[in-house]
Structures are given as structure tokens and as C-alpha cells.
């Protein structure tokens, strides 16, 4: 990252833009009109008749057909090839952030207040200014700044709609998940959020073993090994399934790197490996101790045991290198 400005310099630049106040009023390209409303209700699938049927609009207490209030911003969108005005605070802040290395953008909040519904033929204008500025903050996406833009729509001098729009500008690649994760880094909070194993009568022997630091593999009557465990129908239901204790050593047979969605108690990305044990069966588990980018089929691994709480322990794989 090559940040050319300090946080104080960025803040000073933003305060200057903020102090310059609202942008000049900009008119919507067209008055409120039926064709744009028709396109919108068709695409959104909104069957409310007040947007298309004058009688229905009047029956609902409007003077005539009204525009969907959620279309407020649509009337003043720039369109294909549109260029934001030089005095637009969003243009100016984006230029500042881009120059400082905060080049990625994501919208986080959008709050609209509708003072009244707009009617066909009305012409709106829009003005934008800067509200709250928060930063620099460490976020899951990266180091960044939150800026709230305040946008007001008017018909003549009448304020008809207000919007607060919050955006995060961040440095790509600096997110919390970007740091390589080692098993020793797991926080108590993460452990508390992890999904607990579901133990059934048929798998109880396996989980009992894990608590003791043993990796137990079910053994069928003919001596062959089976994993995951299946109901031991060949035994009386009061008896426990036979098993052998595995060496806990194996190699990666297949794997995936999980980037999304978020999983409670886990830092992204993480690796789930299907490991072929020395004894022959294959077993799934999280693979730790290696950069996800370096995992390959055939990588030697050994089992580890992670205690989630007094009642729950789960096995995982550690890269052997």
C-alpha cells in the first residue's frame, strides 16, 4: 500500500469538502413520467395500482397517479455515460480517497425519508452534501473510511425526499481475513461460536475417542474399515460398534478453500480437506498451519484435537512440513 496522505491530512481534506456545503442544484433529466414508472414497476414486480391507474390512485387519496417513492433517486440518476459534477461532494471525496490509496468502494447503508409522493409532470432537483465522516477504521474488508452523503430532492423549494447514503472506501487486500491463519490464533470468542458436533448413538464412539485424543475408525465384521460411521446393524443394539484407533497420519486427497459465506466462529478463508488416512479411509476436516494458497493434493497431514468446551472436542488436520 502506498498511502500518500496521513489520516489527519485526509480528515482535513474531507472537512474542507464538507465545509463547502451542498452542491449546486441539479435537475432530473425528465419530469416525473409514466413510461419510467412503467419500466420500474414491471422490473420490480410491484403491482400497486396507484402508480399506473388514475382511478385507483384517486381512490387511495392521491390527486392522480403518483410515482413509487422508492424511485426518488431514479429521477436524478446520471444515466449511461453521465458525468458527476465537479462540485459534487462524492466526486471530490472519491478523488481524495483514491489518491490516498482507498480505492475500493462498498455501500453500507441507505436511508430514505419520503415527505410526500411525487405526481406526474413534477420536476425535481437534487443537492448533495457530506454528513458524518468516520475513519480510519479497520473493517473486515480492509482499512477504510465511512462517509455519509446527504442528498435532498426538491420540487421548487419544497423538500420532498431526503436520503442518507453511507459508503466505505477501503484499501483492497487489507481486510482482517487477509492475514494467514494459524490454529493457535483461534480466539475464545470464535471457539464459542463454532458449530458443535451432533452426536448420535452410531457416532458416539467416534466423539468419545476425540475427547480422549483418539481418532477411532469403525470396523465392520469382516475387518474392513468404514468412515463416516454407519449404524452397526450387525451388532446387538446394546453393544458399541467395533473400531480401531488410527495413527492420525494421512495425506490430502482433495480440498476446498472456503471464502464465503461467513461461518460462525471461523476466519475466512479457511481450508476444508478430505484426508486419506494411512489406514485407508477418508475423513473431512479443517486443515490448518498452512497458507491456503500452498495446499496441494498429497500434502502430508496429521490429526489435531480442538477443545471447543468441556463437552465438545473436534478433530482437525495440521500440515506436516
Amino acid at each position, binding site marked *: 500500500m502506498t498511502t500518500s496522505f496521513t489520516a489527519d491530512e485526509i480528515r482535513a481534506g474531507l472537512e474542507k469538502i464538507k465545509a463547502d456545503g451542498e452542491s449546486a442544484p441539479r435537475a432530473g433529466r425528465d419530469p416525473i413520467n409514466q413510461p419510467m414508472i412503467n419500466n420500474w414497476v414491471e422490473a420490480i414486480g410491484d403491482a*400497486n395500482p396507484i402508480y399506473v391507474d388514475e382511478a385507483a390512485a384517486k381512490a387511495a387519496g392521491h390527486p392522480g397517479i403518483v410515482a413509487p417513492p422508492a424511485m426518488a433517486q431514479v429521477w436524478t440518476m446520471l444515466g449511461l455515460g453521465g458525468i458527476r459534477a465537479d462540485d459534487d461532494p462524492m466526486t471530490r471525496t472519491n478523488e481524495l480517497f483514491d489518491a490516498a490509496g482507498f480505492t475500493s468502494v462498498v455501500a453500507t447503508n441507505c*436511508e430514505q425519508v419520503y415527505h410526500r409522493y411525487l405526481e406526474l409532470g413534477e420536476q425535481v432537483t437534487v443537492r448533495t452534501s457530506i454528513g458524518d465522516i468516520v475513519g480510519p477504521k479497520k473493517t473486515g474488508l480492509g482499512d477504510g473510511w465511512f462517509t455519509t452523503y446527504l442528498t435532498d430532492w426538491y420540487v421548487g423549494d419544497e423538500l420532498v425526499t431526503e436520503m442518507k447514503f453511507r459508503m466505505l472506501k477501503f484499501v483492497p487486500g487489507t481486510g482482517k481475513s487477509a492475514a494467514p491463519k494459524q490454529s493457535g490464533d483461534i480466539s475464545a470468542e470464535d471457539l464459542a461460536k463454532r458449530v458443535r458436533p451432533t452426536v448420535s448413538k452410531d457416532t458416539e464412539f467416534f466423539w468419545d475417542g476425540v475427547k480422549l485424543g483418539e481418532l477411532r475408525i469403525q470396523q465392520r465384521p469382516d475387518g474392513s474399515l468404514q468412515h463416516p460411521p454407519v449404524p452397526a446393524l450387525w451388532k446387538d443394539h446394546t453393544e458399541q460398534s467395533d473400531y480401531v484407533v488410527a495413527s492420525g497420519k494421512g495425506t490430502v486427497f482433495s480440498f476446498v478453500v472456503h471464502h464465503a459465506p461467513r461461518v460462525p466462529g471461523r476466519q475466512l478463508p479457511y481450508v476444508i480437506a478430505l484426508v486419506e488416512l494411512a489406514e485407508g479411509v477418508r475423513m473431512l476436516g479443517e486443515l490448518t498451519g498452512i497458507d491456503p494458497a500452498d495446499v496441494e493434493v498429497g500434502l502430508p497431514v496429521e490429526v489435531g484435537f480442538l477443545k471447543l468446551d468441556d463437552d465438545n472436542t473436534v478433530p482437525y488436520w495440521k500440515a506436516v512440513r
Partner: protein
Amino acid sequence: MTTLSTVEVGTTLPQLVIHADTTFIVSTALATRDFQDVHHDRDKAVARGSKDIFVNILTDTGLVQRFVTDWAGPTARVKSIALRLGVPLYAGDTLTLTGTVSAVDGADVTIDVVGKDSLGDHISAKAVIALEDSK
């Protein structure tokens, strides 16, 4: 039609399921006059690090409005919609909107809306509508 007398805190709205195929993503982007490439050009969206094209925010606001007025009827007045944006809604995914009345203040009814897709919560919203009194 939903009237004030039939609404109380805890009332749930019928869920709305949106199959957000490519046509939906593109047609809503164009109907909202949002020509950013990530909403209609898959190659450019992928080049920018996205899995696919994804739905725009103006559409999310529109979907929340549709969701509450589908339930409340044409006489309801939408007063505000506040969205918090979560995971993206990519083309091919399904969005399920659910809602619960969280406050009733005079004629104003606040509805908490959640829109989930396969990645998690795409929309967390609060909509305030004014309902007619039952007569």
C-alpha cells in the same frame, strides 16, 4: 387490505421470494437508470472481483417498498425505508424477504424486513408506513 386494527407488534408479513436471475438483475438496473457495469456486464463484474453481476441498491429499496405495500395495500403511505446492506445478491440466487411489525405509533407502523440469499443477509431494513384507520 391491512388496516391499523389488524396490526400489532409481532404481526408477520407474507414472505416474498424473488428469483434473481440475470434478466432480473439487468432489467431492474436499467429501470432504475443505474448503468454501472457491475449490474449488467458479467465480464466486467468478474474482472472487478465479483462472482457475477449483482443487484443494485435502488432495486433493494424498491423491493422493500413492494414487500410492505403488497401486504399493506394501495392506501398505505410509505414514509421511510432504511436499508443496511449485507452480502451481495448475485445473478442466479434467490432472495427471500420476511418482515415483522416492530412498532405501532399512531398510524405509523414500523416493519423490520430481512432479505436473505444463499450467502446470508443481503438486506436488513426498517420501513415505516402510515396505515388507514379501520372504520
